[in-house]
């Protein structure tokens, strides 16, 4: 028999006390929702045959983007694993949800998490399919169902997002490496139990029987660090933590690369930040992006790269030249109408950063 006291048992939140407003039955009484649904473009996804991997096309762009990501509100990307605090050097915490750490114990954001986050914004501002949802087939707007290319049958046409981020049976043109924290160590935060979305209660998810748009959470000035609700401590990257990563790309058009720069918040007209990981409704996961360098080749440079062992001259651009190149591609993207302006404008209102928006109070 153990003489240790049992671990404190979190009590279920008392709905009546913690959120009296919630007891009113009208939907009006719900607190302002911390998200917005961005409606789909007027025209359905435009499907095209993707560029593929067989060769580097001479008129397309290939290379690497080097990114620095700065945490603005506490970030937690879950591994799905809960460990004892003592396992990660904190004896005061009984249980904690972990983040990935690299072999040097540096916090790490999996490439797949970043990719998902960037992809969802790219989807929203282009004429792209609804790539992942549990919404029923009948609820998906006409022609917006997820692309399902079948390369073996020669069916390859996919939407703009699937072309560069990939689809089932189709490898995309962009690869995201893990983003690794510049410093060792981590902070501990608290993740309240968040309620599942209630599609039946929030009728706003649907319009005339079809899903109304893509969900994006607002940025807020800070994350709620401790709720009254039951929850669990989480390993976090706190404000000002800096991550670096690299993103490899091949066979992109200028519009596609330009749109990627816009999504990464590099268009001064559209100062947006990423929203990464868990706790989005309570203001967590805001990250700003800086593109620190680009290694980009096409045409004759491509040929030069493959007739010499040492790259002839560094093709890596930084500073003003890099800024000019980015703005040039961003303008190309806007001018080509590849980017859906109404959607981008609507997203700006949700993803704008900095913001003066307060985090939600009460229920979330």
């Amino acid at each position, binding site marked *: 028999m153990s003489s240790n006291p049992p671990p404190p048992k979190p009590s279920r939140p008392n709905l009546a006390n913690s959120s009296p407003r919630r007891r009113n039955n009208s939907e009006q009484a719900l607190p302002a929702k911390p*998200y917005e*649904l961005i409606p789909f473009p007027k025209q359905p996804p435009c499907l095209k045959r993707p560029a593929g*991997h*067989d*060769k*580097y*096309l*001479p008129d397309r762009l290939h290379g*690497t983007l080097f990114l620095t990501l700065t945490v603005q509100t506490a970030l937690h990307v*879950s*591994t*799905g*694993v809960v460990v004892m605090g003592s396992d990660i050097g904190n004896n005061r915490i009984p249980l904690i949800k972990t983040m*990935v750490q*690299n*072999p040097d114990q540096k916090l790490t954001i*999996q*490439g*797949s998490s970043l*990719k*998902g986050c960037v992809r*969802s914004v790219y*989807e929203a501002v282009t004429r792209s399919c*609804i*790539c*992942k*949802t*549990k*919404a029923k087939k009948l609820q998906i707007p006409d022609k917006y169902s997820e692309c399902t290319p079948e390369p073996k049958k020669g069916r390859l046409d996919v939407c703009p997002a699937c072309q560069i*981020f*990939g689809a089932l049976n189709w*490898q*995309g043109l*962009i*690869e*995201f*490496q*893990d983003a690794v924290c510049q410093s060792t160590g981590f902070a501990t935060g608290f993740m309240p139990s968040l309620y*599942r*979305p209630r*599609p039946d209660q929030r009728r706003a*998810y649907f319009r005339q029987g079809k*899903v109304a*748009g*893509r*969900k994006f*959470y607002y940025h807020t000035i800070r994350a709620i660090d401790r709720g009254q609700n039951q929850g669990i401590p989480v390993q976090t990257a706190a404000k000002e933590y800096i991550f670096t990563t*690299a993103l*490899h790309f091949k066979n992109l058009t200028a519009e596609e690369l330009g749109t990627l720069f816009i999504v990464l918040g590099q268009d001064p007209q559209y100062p947006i930040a990423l929203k990464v990981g868990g706790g*989005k409704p309570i203001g967590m996961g805001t990250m700003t992006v800086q593109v620190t360098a680009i290694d980009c080749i096409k045409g004759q440079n*491509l*040929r030069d790269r*493959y*007739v*010499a*062992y*040492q790259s002839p001259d560094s093709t890596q651009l930084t500073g003003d030249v890099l800024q000019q190149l980015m703005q040039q591609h961003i303008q190309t993207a806007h001018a080509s109408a590849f980017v859906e302006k109404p959607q981008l404008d609507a997203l700006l209102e949700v993803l704008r950063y900095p913001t003066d928006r307060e985090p939600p109070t009460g229920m979330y």
Partner: protein
Amino acid sequence: MHKRLVNHCTIELSLIPDGPILIKSGKEGADPTKPDMEFVETYHQDGRTIYLPGSSLKGAIRAHAERIVRSIGSDSKPTNPNLLWANDPLNDNYDYLKDRKDKQKKLSPPEIHLHSSFTDRLFGNTSIASRLRIEDAYPTDRTQLKLEERNGVAIDRVFGSVAVGPFNYQVCTGGEFKTKIHLKNFTLAQLGLIGLVLRDLNDGWFGLGFTKSRGLGTVRVQYEQAIVQYPACVLNSENQISLLGHSNLSWNHTTLLGVGAFLEESERDRYGFPKDDRLDTPVSAEAMPLGFGVQLTWHGNTVTDLFERSVKAWKKVVMSGATS
């Protein structure tokens, strides 16, 4: 001529994960308590270990070599068989390797070589043996391996909840895998192309293994040494490399020699090997153990010098294509 071995190169290198890598084992889902996708394992030096199968490495290297050749050469068969091109081995019916009048009949070995693509000549096709072999890559020190399980989820675009997953997979994020690449009867241009492929692997331009789009598979390449051997040669009294039985064929003792250098002109042309396939190196040849054969050794980081030189031979092949 393939019955003779005229030159052979062994490149010893280590592959060091730069981020997570996963070479998937085929038997996913057999044991529900195991991750959905786990790393391929084998017995090696009386213990179970994860490893990188040579076949996977060769597949990735071949795919990238083809990508390079298609990008700066042609992706379909040119009229001039000496021009640079790469085929798509998966979708090639190889009609051009059959007799024009009698499709049941194959061409002669030199004709098959001449008409095969640059990459098929190196990696093999149904009619040509591969010149390149890669050994399985095993960890240099099993205790240095870092294995972890990762979870993947896809977020629902409409509801913001989990749409797919979590599914988990096993990755290796740390350690070092040692392997050897063997090239026999190679041209210097072929060696040069391998050098460019390995450079790109180290630069992250392509990865190894599964789910590359998640950023998996990036490795750093560290060279241990490269040895180029001429088994049918000796160092003669003037310290020159000379081909046994061919007193008229001898070279300075610092010469890097491609397969074509060893052949009579008529044979070389029938196979389509380049002329004058030789380069000077800073390395001096030594007699191989047992008295037969001559070898040149590049140690550690100087292996890149071998590649830099070979890429010059590769460039000649590329440029001859550009001007015709």
